[in-house]
């Protein structure tokens, strides 16, 4: 593992468990009256967002501020990017300003990887195109661990080594355009979960056969065998072609409604990375049910991002 967090495929099981254990401790701080830690005082974190985002940007900003880092927010709108500045020139500007970490969201897959070659600080991928979104996968794994009582300190954690061994996770929906799905497949596999992808054939990537997971086209068959169902958003903004005949048909075959939830095992949970299209991939009643972890996922996002920032920036500068 290096000083960047670009892909969840780069994380070893020990890395991932360490991030989640750290997040467990940091989550307790959110319960205190004073939620701030002095750990990253004097460090600068730049949020470099080329794509719209509410929760991820705010989550990273809150995480960095709770660790006392200075936060600079940069969004492509209203910046020199609108005048045609390239990613590299922007990177060099940030470098000159002394950014210790750059959190980047970009519509081009691989942008964080390129950025990491140009800046000295740590690069954190906050979503690149349809490639990866590793902190989302980490917060999903964190949420699953908590819901199934496997967080650090629990008896189950001692048995499973902090992983998700034996849990069956079904990811449903637009896998093709989903960086969340890709990051989750790798991370959950690393942590020992069995991952099944469910989607219409048109919304599966060509290379899905090489991913460490199984694939199904039939949601109703997969549900009774799922401990976790993760619904993905239908990403209309990334759809350049007709991937399914109509939204109604998609919703009928791949949407999670109350009848489908009834097929789930008793302890199963329903996740969604947000933003939700209520009535399309997930019924409103399901999104608001006690099984749903949607709101928890947002809260957990801050703890997990604090953990990542602390582990990347909190220690010594890299020694040559």
């Amino acid at each position, binding site marked *: *593992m290096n000083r960047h967090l670009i892909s969840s495929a780069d994380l070893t099981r*020990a890395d991932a468990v360490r991030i989640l*254990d*750290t997040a467990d401790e940091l989550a307790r701080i959110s319960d205190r009256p004073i939620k701030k830690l002095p750990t990253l005082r004097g460090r600068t974190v730049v949020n470099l967002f080329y794509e719209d985002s509410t929760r991820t940007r705010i989550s990273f900003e809150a995480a960095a501020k709770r660790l006392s880092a200075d936060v600079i927010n940069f969004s492509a709108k209203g910046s020199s990017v609108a005048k045609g500045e390239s990613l590299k020139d922007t990177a060099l500007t940030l470098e000159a300003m002394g950014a210790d970490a750059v959190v980047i969201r970009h519509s081009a897959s691989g942008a964080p990887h390129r950025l990491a070659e140009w800046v000295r600080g740590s690069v954190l991928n906050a979503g690149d195109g349809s490639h990866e979104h590793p902190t989302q996968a980490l917060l999903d794994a964190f949420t699953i661990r908590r819901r199934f009582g496997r967080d650090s300190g629990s008896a189950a954690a001692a048995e499973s080594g902090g992983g998700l061994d034996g849990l069956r996770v079904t990811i449903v929906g637009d896998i093709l355009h989903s960086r969340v799905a890709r990051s989750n497949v790798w991370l959950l596999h690393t942590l020992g979960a069995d991952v099944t992808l469910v989607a219409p054939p048109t919304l599966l990537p060509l290379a899905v056969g090489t991913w460490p997971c199984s694939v199904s086209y039939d949601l109703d068959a997969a549900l009774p065998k799922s401990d976790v169902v993760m619904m993905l958003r239908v990403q209309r903004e990334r759809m350049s072609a007709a991937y399914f005949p109509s939204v109604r048909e998609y919703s009928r075959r791949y949407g999670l409604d109350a009848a489908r939830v009834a097929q789930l095992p008793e302890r199963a949970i329903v996740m969604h990375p947000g933003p939700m299209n209520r009535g399309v991939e997930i019924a409103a009643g399901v999104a608001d049910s006690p099984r749903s972890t949607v709101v928890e996922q947002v809260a957990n996002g801050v703890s997990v991002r604090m953990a990542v920032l602390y*582990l990347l920036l909190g220690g010594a500068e890299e020694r040559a």
Partner: protein
Amino acid sequence: MPAAQSPHSGAPASGGAPVLGPPGQSPPGRDGPAEPVPGPGRTGPAPGKVVLEEAEIGRALTRVAHEIIERTRGAADVILLGIPTRGVPLARRLAERIGQVESRQVPCGSLDITMYRDDLRLRPARALGHTEVPREGIDGRIVVLVDDVLYSGRTVRAALDALNELGRPRAVQLAVLVDRGHRELPVRADYVGKNLPTSQQELVRVLLSEIDGEDAVCLGAAHGAAGRTQ
């Protein structure tokens, strides 16, 4: 900035491999996981001369427990907070002894200081310990910080900062099993199990049965670079 961490609790209590830092370096320091992870120092030869044996540690703790009761007039408002790793079982043992004498439960918890250390930038990121404050909170109470070894005093400084964010105790006192001298900050312990004159080249290792399977305090030669970074 001189190192804050003493090699006191023994050789690197190894926090495991640094997750995102440079590979292959075990962060020396005391705040590793509670289980005894074999670290570079721990796997070395015999830990050196035993200076306190199990019975002596027991007697020292009993005496410290009585001193706490005396100094705090019955320990009515006392909360014991152990500093991970080995301060935590020590705090529990003291709470038990005070509880026996006073015939009641004495609140006891742990206070992790990792995020408040002044030497974070000198080492790869460390694993965090566990902070568990008794439900009563610390406001208006007498907090007795408990640690295994008092050395530079930097751990205690960090602990005071950490306490500050949890509330406002009426008073803060410090109890340590071993005071080995060589202070770098104006810090003094209120209760000391044993004063142990040492040279800075020496390593003090405290072994406790809850973590290490046996009780002992050992004094040995430092293992090369493990320990202080001066």
